[in-house]
């Protein structure tokens, strides 16, 4: 299932996505909406879309960020008014009140499952990591003691660099899989100011393995937050849901979203291509594909593509919101294909095949003289392909 990763300036995107069936639910962001407004919004969504899966990411991880920009989070009763220091969380008694307040808050809201508080960690072996594991175990214990009738998902919030050491990931998995909970909500912080950021292939391989072990082997429900095309690989190895939003910062978790802005310019419009399993710039990249008469090979074939082709991506027709809703449509179609493939090996084979076809298109575009920026080119596909191969060797 594709979930909308909620953020600032939601307009009516989520309702449109739910109505069109391109998203099956939402992960709401308290950072981006005041307490009263978000509660009203969740209640209304639950009434208007009773089948939608609504999750509340407590974003507790922001309590330890430096130079943080926490938006509306300080309105929420569970969120600490001051940044927390390591010493305040060094034992279970320091963690427990935060767990209780965060889960109690969600329990009274129309959410499908509770998401545990946690902190963002840079390592799987330092003291911060132990604190994160205390949050996990305390959340599981409190959920069990209270007998909540909603499932609990444990937040895994880690920097991508944590995933580079397979041994550390396996130790992490041994510990995670001792938790008696329904599943996990995974947030991977990535460096980079560009979109999409370059994915580390070793880290991706180990992330695939993490998701595979949790979902396929250990039968947990896994939601991969802040996902994008790369999230399709996570679905192929067993992840049940991927959440993705409209802004680039809602498609990959970077600290940009959490730090005081130093300014910048609006992102250039992009077109999400199912056949390329990537997004490319409307101008000049899609323009060049039109000029080379290659556009038919990269058009996604969704309900919005007719307008895009007719206008050649004119900003009048292809608005920012159109582009963003189209992104969900494209991901939903790819996601459905992967899920429909059935068992693990079939899903992987299908995705690998799609990646090969996408790389063929890039080859032909090269031959036709179409050039792409690094982030629009084959870089992420090569990484995905390599990681899927390495993942198969691992399991």
């Amino acid at each position, binding site marked *: 299932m594709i979930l909308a990763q909620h953020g600032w300036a939601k307009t009516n995107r989520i309702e449109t996505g739910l109505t069109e069936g391109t998203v099956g639910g939402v992960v709401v962001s308290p950072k981006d909406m005041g307490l009263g407004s978000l509660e009203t919004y969740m209640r209304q969504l639950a009434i208007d879309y009773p089948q939608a899966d609504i999750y509340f990411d407590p974003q507790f991880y922001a309590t330890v960020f430096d130079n943080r920009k926490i938006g509306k989070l300080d309105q929420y009763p569970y969120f600490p008014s001051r940044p927390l220091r390591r010493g305040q969380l060094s034992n279970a008694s320091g963690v427990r009140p935060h767990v209780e307040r965060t889960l109690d808050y969600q329990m009274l809201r129309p959410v499908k499952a509770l998401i545990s508080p946690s902190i963002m960690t840079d390592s799987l072996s330092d003291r911060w990591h*132990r604190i994160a594991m205390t949050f996990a175990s305390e959340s599981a214990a409190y959920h069990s003691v209270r007998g909540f009738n909603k499932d609990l998902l444990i937040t895994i919030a880690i920097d991508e660099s944590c995933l580079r050491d397979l041994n550390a990931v*396996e*130790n992490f998995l*041994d*510990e995670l*899989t001792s938790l008696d909970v329904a599943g996990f909500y995974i947030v991977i912080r990535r460096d980079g100011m560009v979109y999409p950021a370059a994915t580390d292939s070793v880290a991706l391989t180990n992330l695939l393995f993490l998701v595979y072990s949790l979902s396929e082997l*250990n*039968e947990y429900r896994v939601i991969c937050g802040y996902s994008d095309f790369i999230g399709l690989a996570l679905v192929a190895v067993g992840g049940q849901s991927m959440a993705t939003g409209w802004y680039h910062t809602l498609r990959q978790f970077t600290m940009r979203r959490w730090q005081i802005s130093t300014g910048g310019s609006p992102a250039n419009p992009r077109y999400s291509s199912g056949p390329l399993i990537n997004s490319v710039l409307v101008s000049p990249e899609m323009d060049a594909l039109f000029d080379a008469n290659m556009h038919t090979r990269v058009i996604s074939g969704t309900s919005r593509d007719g307008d895009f082709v007719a206008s050649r991506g004119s900003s009048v027709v292809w608005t920012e919101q159109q582009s963003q809703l189209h992104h969900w449509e494209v991901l939903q179609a790819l996601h459905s294909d992967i899920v429909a493939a059935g068992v693990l090996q079939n899903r992987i084979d299908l995705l690998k095949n799609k990646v090969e076809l996408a790389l063929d298109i890039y080859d032909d575009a090269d031959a036709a003289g179409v050039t792409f920026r690094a982030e629009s080119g084959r870089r992420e596909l090569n990484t995905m392909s390599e990681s899927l191969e390495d993942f198969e060797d691992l399991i």
Partner: protein
Amino acid sequence: MRLPVLEPSDLESLVPGVSVIGSPLNGGQKLVFEANYSGEKCAVKAILISAEALGSVPGNDYSDDEAIARAEREVEILGGIDSPHLVSLGPVPFQVVEHQGQRIVIFSEEWLSGRALNEEIADQGPLPVEQVLEMALSVTSAICSLWDRSIVHRDIKPGNIVRRSPGGEHVLLDMGLAFDLGDKSITPSGIYVGTPIYYSPDQLILRPNRALDFRSDSYALGTVMYESLTGSHPFATQGSSQKEVVTKIVNGEMPVAPSSIVANVPNEVERLVNRLLQHRPHRRFRTCSQLEAELEAIKANI
């Protein structure tokens, strides 16, 4: 761990009503006496807590009082577990006796008249798949019953799996009681307590912040299933030393497939044993019920 010095006549005088039938057996960390008590046949077990000459028993990190209290609590817990596949407590109540400068814990278990799995394997060689699955289901049921109380057995091996009566159901013995006196599989001096060639890697590699859970027992079950199917330990060859076997377990080596030793091992059985023998706990089964369900499904399909 050392055994107490205790003759049958000593036991009979220390515990009135006990009538010892034969010579005591060495039960690893305890002496085991076949005995009658109040007209009921039972196995009376004696564990050495301390001896004047030794002080506390090596391998026991607790004081005498702590060790005794812990043992008593374990007996109480085990007495409360109702499982047909765990040995049940016998009629002789838990007690601590003093004998020739030794402090000894005495308790009893039901008497089992069937054979141990290691004897069956030694006599018959590889056992029929159906029989192995039946045994595995019984042991899994016992593991689950223990894990429901957060207890890990830690010494599952063919010698601890005995039929209640000849041809009867399998029962798991020695429910970690002696281990729990020290709560360590490895003593501070690095001496293994128990039977390390049946230990899981998680038991042999004590990682910080990681407590053992039932998945450790499920690894041992994988070893027992492998041995039952093939007639040989997965990591031991003729002449292997204990150290060599333990090294293979710690290093995460995988054994040759059972089907390469014995014909007609079904694929699904082989896959299950392979999964149980995974070096990493997360690659085994997360819950007891998943393991039970898998075994039931395989049994139904064979």
